[in-house]
């Protein structure tokens, strides 16, 4: 998704104002002129300056560069759906993995994504099971990362 530079400029300036306002509430140590607020405020100023230049640049180029160009991929609904599905599967993992467990979550995400990207059902199942098993062994058994068992806790190995 492509935006005109001016959009980024505006976003940066709004962010800079909010950031400076928030940073100036940081407390200072007694007898110290420079506190934790100094560096963020300087960064905020830098953001604002860059934002200003970006707005000027984007405004000058507004005839050739549209404010928002969604790009070829967004015209293809399938690709939009793919991006949404990918992001959704990460969010799903964040929300569900602790009670569902790593193995079911991973299997589900892998099978859905593989099928969606055009892999055949049999290959998808093989890849999903193999990947999940290998990652589980590698991380949970070799590296001792406590991957959640979730629903499979009764049969945990």
């Amino acid at each position: 998704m492509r935006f005109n530079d001016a959009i980024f400029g505006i976003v940066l300036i709004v962010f800079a104002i909010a950031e400076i306002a928030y940073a100036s509430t940081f407390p200072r140590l007694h007898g110290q002129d420079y506190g934790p607020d100094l560096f963020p405020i300087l960064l905020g100023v830098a953001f604002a300056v860059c934002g200003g230049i970006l707005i000027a640049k984007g405004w000058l180029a507004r005839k050739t560069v549209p404010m928002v160009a969604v790009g070829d991929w967004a015209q293809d609904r399938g690709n939009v759906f793919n991006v949404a599905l990918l992001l959704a599967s990460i969010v799903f993992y964040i929300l569900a993995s602790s009670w569902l467990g790593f193995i079911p979550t991973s299997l589900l995400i892998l099978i859905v994504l593989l099928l969606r990207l055009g892999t055949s059902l049999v290959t998808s199942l093989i890849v999903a099971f193999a990947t999940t098993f290998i990652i589980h062994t590698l991380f949970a058994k070799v590296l001792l990362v406590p991957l959640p068992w979730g629903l499979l806790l009764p049969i945990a190995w």
Partner: protein
Amino acid sequence: METVLKAFTLIADPYTLGVMLLAALFGLFVGAIPGLTATMATALLIPFTFFMDPVPAIAAIVATVATAIFAGDIPGALLRIPGTPASAAYCDETYAMTKKGLAERALGIALVTSVIGGLTGSIVLSMSAPALAEFAIQFSSYEYFWLACLGLSCAVIISTGSTLKGFVSLFIGLFIATIGIDGTAGFPRFTFGSVELMGGVSFIPAMIGMFAISEVLRYVASNRATIAVPQQPVGSVFKGLGSILYKYKINIFRGSSLGAVIGILPGAGADIAAWITYAISKKRSKEPEKFGTGHPEGLVDAGAANNASLAGAWVPAIVFGIPGDSITAIVIGVLYMKGMNPGPMVFIERPELIYAVFIAFFIANLALLPLGFGAIKLSRQILKIPRRVLMPVILVFCMVGAFAINNTVFGITVMLVLGIIAYLMEENGFPVAPAILGIVLGNMVEDNFMASMIKADGDPLGFFSRPIAATLGILTIALWLTPLLVMAFKKYTNRQRQERAV
């Protein structure tokens, strides 16, 4: 001498060598798959290095990167798709050789020059780093502040695309680094009450997001063309190679040494080294008209340069803690995690670790010769693995890797957010590398800045009170003013031209 021996025993450990071999195979595989870069290979590797001792961890990264940069030449030659950006400079050249039926020769040259370049880079690294460290030991917070500014500014100016957007990217990185408990007063900044953010944005999930998730996103958002794998079998790789390499011995030397020097410059990595040396090779060649038609000369220069630059990039990274490219930025993060803070003190306190890194470079580059040969032989099988199968697998790897650092799903959230940010940035021409350097160097810049401010009592002249600091400071400010001066100069010449035209 004793330290070198100690370093040898650290590396010669079977565990370390085994890790290096696996890492090298991993690097070859990732590098050979178009769309998966050497930086992504490093990002995927760091969750594993988290569980290792410093030496195997660093040796694994060295081995992965050295092999990945060579492996990037394989799809470049066979399919005209560079496997990593570092192979893009001469991708057309090697593909033209393949069309002439010389695929194995192109890959043979790429392999041998990569090995020579990598070894040259290793020599430059092991010679210059200790010497520089001796010099760097006298530095105070002023010098470190300016050095970091200089490094970051170089990174912005060298990075591809607009300088302004490079600075925005850098500031984003520096801002991300301010999140968490601050160094001077211990106050939690921008955490919005989140306990997980108190320690700052975790480095590993951030890197995985910015280098791997953004790449997966780009893949699913693109119109995923399937890659046709070429059919002709690979013949003898090393046949007739000797005479070509002998003919272009000056090119090998020039490419390797230039590549190592370009690597030392902060922000300029293997891809830029390859582009520059390829252009120089063409300019200096007796037969520049042959370039682009399957002529090996430019390939010799650039093939050596990109591998040489890898080692060069480690010089500022371990001596000053200032990364030479995005891979060493990740390395610096790993070094901090291992309590092996980069800087001149490591050379005094634990020199054997530094020498072990040097030795790892030599071993990795020597091992590249047989391993790379195997990869060329297996190239068709590797290229047959479809990316539509790999991408979901990489996604699950990323999520588990981001989880494994603190054993919380919060790491995955960090990965997701930074992945989306990196994807949007790249789509809109904001280079990502300066942001990475900003995240890695943010705390160092701020700590040295605050220490200097307090020492100088707010007097900006304090930053110029020591000779080296003053030199570095003036250099940095000159660098900041260059784009403005260039702009003014362009306007001036344009006006003169217009006046003349009238």
